[in-house]
């Protein structure tokens, strides 16, 4: 068993080195996009494989998303950034990169003009407060409560009560934030994000025969939330509120 784990970790290490080497080669060739892109594509494929093997960390997602972007695969980059943000929604690097990828999505003027097709923005408690922040708040609150208890049951003192109040407030804040984060996570799971891998028309029903929700197709890289499936079509909700159907092959699920 140990030998198997060792072999797996060695293989992961080699693959990671290989992905980094391909990325570096791409950087070396950056003055010629035609020559650089295949290296980045190779790097992205290796990072993707690592991710699928379970080596999931926000930094791996960041590297993978950048490799996908530099390889010219914008939907892949957005999907990878979302995959990283799913495990670390507060990761500042991933958030900043996702904004860059979103800026690269070029909607037509008709799509831009329609407020119901507006793209999402990063919001919610999870994108601002990370688990380490919660841990820091809980640590301070625990220290305050501990000091208050020590003071109360030894020498006594006038500042025991404010100390205990502050500690209790810290604990309540920590609990509230953790609860809000859990709720947001649950909502995310209920309506998972999917990325449009190619330009596609948003339809009013699950078939080509149904009328378009808007005549101009949604651009590749558009982020939608899946709310249902039927007959090879996925019912989606755009952040602006528009609801429609898109063919399943045109959507990229978050790995």
């Amino acid at each position, binding site marked *: 068993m140990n030998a198997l784990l060792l072999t797996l970790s060695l293989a992961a290490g080699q693959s*990671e080195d290989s992905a980094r080497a391909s990325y*570096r080669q791409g950087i070396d060739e950056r003055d010629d996009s*035609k020559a650089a892109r295949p290296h980045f594509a190779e790097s992205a494929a290796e990072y993707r494989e690592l991710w699928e093997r379970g080596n999931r*960390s926000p930094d791996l997602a960041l590297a993978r998303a950048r490799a996908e972007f530099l390889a010219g695969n914008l939907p892949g980059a957005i999907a990878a950034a979302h995959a990283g943000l799913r495990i*670390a929604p507060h990761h500042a690097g991933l958030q900043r990169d996702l904004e860059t990828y979103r800026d690269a999505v070029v909607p037509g003027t008709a799509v831009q003009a329609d407020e119901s097709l507006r793209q999402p923005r990063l919001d919610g408690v999870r994108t601002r407060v990370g688990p380490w922040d919660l841990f820091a708040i809980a640590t301070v609150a625990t220290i305050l409560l501990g000091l208050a208890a*020590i003071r109360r049951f030894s020498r006594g003192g006038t500042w025991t009560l404010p100390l205990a109040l502050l500690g209790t407030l810290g604990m309540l804040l920590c609990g509230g934030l953790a609860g809000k984060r859990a709720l947001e996570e649950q909502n995310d799971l209920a309506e998972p994000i999917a990325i449009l891998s*190619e330009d596609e*028309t948003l339809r009013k029903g699950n078939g080509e025969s149904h009328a*378009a929700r808007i005549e101009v197709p949604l651009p590749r890289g558009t982020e939608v939330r899946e709310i249902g499936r039927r007959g090879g079509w996925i019912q989606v909700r755009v952040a602006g509120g528009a609801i429609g159907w898109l063919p399943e092959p045109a959507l990229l699920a978050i790995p």
Partner: protein
Amino acid sequence: MSRTGELLLALVAFCGSARAEPPTSLEQLSPVDRTQADFYGAIAGPGPGVTAAWSLDSDRVALGGDIALTLTVTNAANPGELLRPNLAERPEWKELFGAIRDEPAKSPGEFRYRLKPRNAGRFELLVPKYRFYQPRLPDGRRFQTAFVENPTLVVDEAVAVSGPSIRIPLEAPARFFDEPPDPPASRASPPAGLWCGLFACGAIVPTAWIALWRRNNPDGAKLARIRRAKSVRAALDALGRAERSPELVSKILLRYLQDRWHLPASAQAPSEVATALRIAEVPRARIGELEQLLNRCDGVRFGNIADNGVSLAGAAVDLIRGWEGANG
């Protein structure tokens, strides 16, 4: 001529003038006409009729590249009102091209598309029918179909670039060209063990501290208990800051007795205090001890006794602790 005859002549003249001015705008067509299939809003101007031509910028493209397709509509009376045929929603076009994007036109009556083929090969592009409205024809024959030729596109498997090629640098924020971050550099969240450790420490450390302190200060626990009463705590703190003043020591003691033992505010002299406490059924030994201390305070205050405030404050602290039961 009669009035009816004049009206009839005017009506005929109006109809004649209407016939002479064919519609030049979509608004002049009926809603039924406007929604005809394959009709993109073209109304024929003077001349033979509307012409529509589809043309590619080049008849060859390498796989992975893209090419521009242009539809040019001429001889329409309303070029500004023409609608763009939506190629992106035609299944046969979606099968051929991975991306179909609209591009801005150079002039009215022109529509440009940017196409990206999916596969290599030779393809005849089946362009949509183009119908237009010919107002000069009789009713029922006014919708005519313009002749359009299907352009042919050859998609090459790979392009062997010969000669000097143009090098286009990759465009991305500078941080994208830094070394890729080391994946295990950061942990997304604290491990569960750390949380357990925090809460365990939060419970164990104060408990251990208090137990240790009480073990080393056996009287401290009792002192801590009596200090929980606000008046006792205030008296002990005030005696600590009493600046060695006998008058202040006696005032603090009286204040403590008023708060804790309901001594009337009128009892100020040692004998009055003793009488009031006797009525309140405080044990005589304690009253004697208190009266003695108050007399000492008065004695030091008026210079009758050679004592100082330090010993008085200490005696007052001992007295309070004794009364509160902290001295055993």
